[in-house]
């Protein structure tokens, strides 16, 4: 087995934040004597990621996702635990390390807004010292994949959010990094544009075997791209494993949809009725009772059609966080 692309062992980041109460008096007081609170943004998390893996990094706002990504890309110095990315210690910011990674932040731009994207691409080439033939090949390949042949000539200022995001992705990948840190790359985009970005990341991963660590609030991104997810909450690691395992573990219920042949029937004896109208019933059944209940319904009712579904992944994730918050 090759060396892991990313190894994180008991990584922590604590921030010291000044605290003060509201009001002028408190503000004046804090000018002279500041009180600090230590916030554990990331608290002893550990995981390894193999080369070529695409891992979804999930957690609510403020969970510590971005802090972790920043430590892995060398922007932040960990309070404890030294991560290993491609055999480098990120915070040392060696050029050989930085040449092999990239960082995309959906809410920030690294393009010059006055310049056409093509110029920003050229500057990126100069920064990374990519030889021209390689650069042109990669650039044109990406332009083709994202279908932006005309857009790259316009000043970035004049592009829509989605169009701009395509450019951000291109510019961030022109040096063909081996490790991608994508922080909310699809934030604010419409569904079609999200899908295009997603497909592009998928294609890049397939073609170049790159390792991807992705955060997103859109579960569609995660479901499409990541077999494996890491869930953190309040800086602590809650789950690391297959997406399907996460669903199994954290969703106690399944949803059964029944279409009735005669249009009527009583269903409250099987479980919680979520919805019943015009010959269609939706039930919420405890996971372990699903086979039994399904069999009973089929035996006792006149059924036209029956479906068993996992709840939407959003609901599962929400449940994970709600559960853990209650515990903490």
């Amino acid at each position, binding site marked *: 087995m090759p060396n892991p692309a990313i190894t994180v062992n008991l990584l922590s*980041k*604590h*921030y*010291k934040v000044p605290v003060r109460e509201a009001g002028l008096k408190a503000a004046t007081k804090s000018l002279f004597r500041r009180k600090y609170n230590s916030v554990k943004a990331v608290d002893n998390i550990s995981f390894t990621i193999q080369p070529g893996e695409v891992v979804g990094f999930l957690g609510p706002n403020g969970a510590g996702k971005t802090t972790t990504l*920043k430590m892995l*890309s*060398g*922007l*932040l*110095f960990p*309070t404890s635990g030294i991560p290993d990315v491609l055999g480098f210690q990120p*915070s040392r*910011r060696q*050029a*050989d*390390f*930085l*040449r092999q*990674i*990239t*960082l995309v*932040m959906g809410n*920030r*731009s*690294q393009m010059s807004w*006055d*310049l056409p994207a093509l*110029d920003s691409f*050229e*500057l990126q080439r*100069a*920064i*990374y*010292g990519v030889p021209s033939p390689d650069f042109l090949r990669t650039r044109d390949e990406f332009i083709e994949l994202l279908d932006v042949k005309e857009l790259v000539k316009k000043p970035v200022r004049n592009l829509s959010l989605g169009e701009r995001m395509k450019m951000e992705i291109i510019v961030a990948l022109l040096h063909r990094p081996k490790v991608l840190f994508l922080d909310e790359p699809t934030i604010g985009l419409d569904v079609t544009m999200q899908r295009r970005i997603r497909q592009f990341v998928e294609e890049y991963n397939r073609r170049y075997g790159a390792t991807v660590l992705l955060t997103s609030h859109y579960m569609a991104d995660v479901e499409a791209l990541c077999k494996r997810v890491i869930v953190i909450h309040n800086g602590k690691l809650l789950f690391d494993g297959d997406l399907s395992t996460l669903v199994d573990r954290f969703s106690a219920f399944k949803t059964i949809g029944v279409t009735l042949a005669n249009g009527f029937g009583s269903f409250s004896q099987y479980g919680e009725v979520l919805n019943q109208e015009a010959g269609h019933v939706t039930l919420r059944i405890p996971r372990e009772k699903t086979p039994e209940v399904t069999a009973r319904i089929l035996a006792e009712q006149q059924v036209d059609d029956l479906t068993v579904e996992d709840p939407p992944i959003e609901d599962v994730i929400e449940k994970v966080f709600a559960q853990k918050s209650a515990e903490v």
Partner: protein
Amino acid sequence: MKIIKLAWSYLRIGIANELQYRVNFFIQLLQSFIALGTGLIGLWLVFTQTTQLGGWSQPELLAVMGIYMVMGGVIQSAIQPNMQRLMDEIQDGSLDFALTKPVDGQILVSIREFRFWQLTDVVVGLVVLVIAVVQLQEKIGVWQALAFMVALLLGGIMIYSFWLMLTTTAFWLIRIWELVNLFQGLYAAGRWPVTIYPQWLRLGLTFIVPVAFAVTVPAEALTNRLTPLTLLGAFGLAILLMLLARFVWRLGVRSYSGASA
């Protein structure tokens, strides 16, 4: 070598981009002439009262003004825009991108912006300088010219280092817009040779804000006032400020990334 190539890429693309906005050129030209006009009126007012100002004759003061404009043009075209962008990026967090590039961070943030049209100040300043030198009716020797160029270069380095330190404080203070105005106000003092100011101000303009070295010292080189000791001092101070700026920059980046926290 790679850095020079990179700087050239930025310069080339920056210029090509700005050439599209010709209106800016005319506005800038107008501004340069207004600055020139007010400067000349100031000179004229002084010389209706006296024939000398702190030992500087009329053409000599004209030379000071020319250098002031040239240096001001360099600051406005190459130094200040980079520092403003740095300030913005520290504020909105997009400096992260610059810091994850395989290029020295300080150099990268110092070469990204170039305001081509601001060079009109440099051109107008040079014209003023040539006129002043012709009026001086003195022969400028090779060594003198060389000393002038070196003094100008050292002055530029000092101003850059000073600006970088000023901007780097944004890592701690975040909002420092007023500093830009502060700098411009202080730089305006360089319009006159610093030797005419009271001593406390002269010292401030020499060692705290290196306006003296940026304008007065090059002017001294042109007007036979420069002693080798001053030039040596300028050299020493330039190196010192450069190292200090480097140190402060590193400190700023460290605190940004929380290495010390």
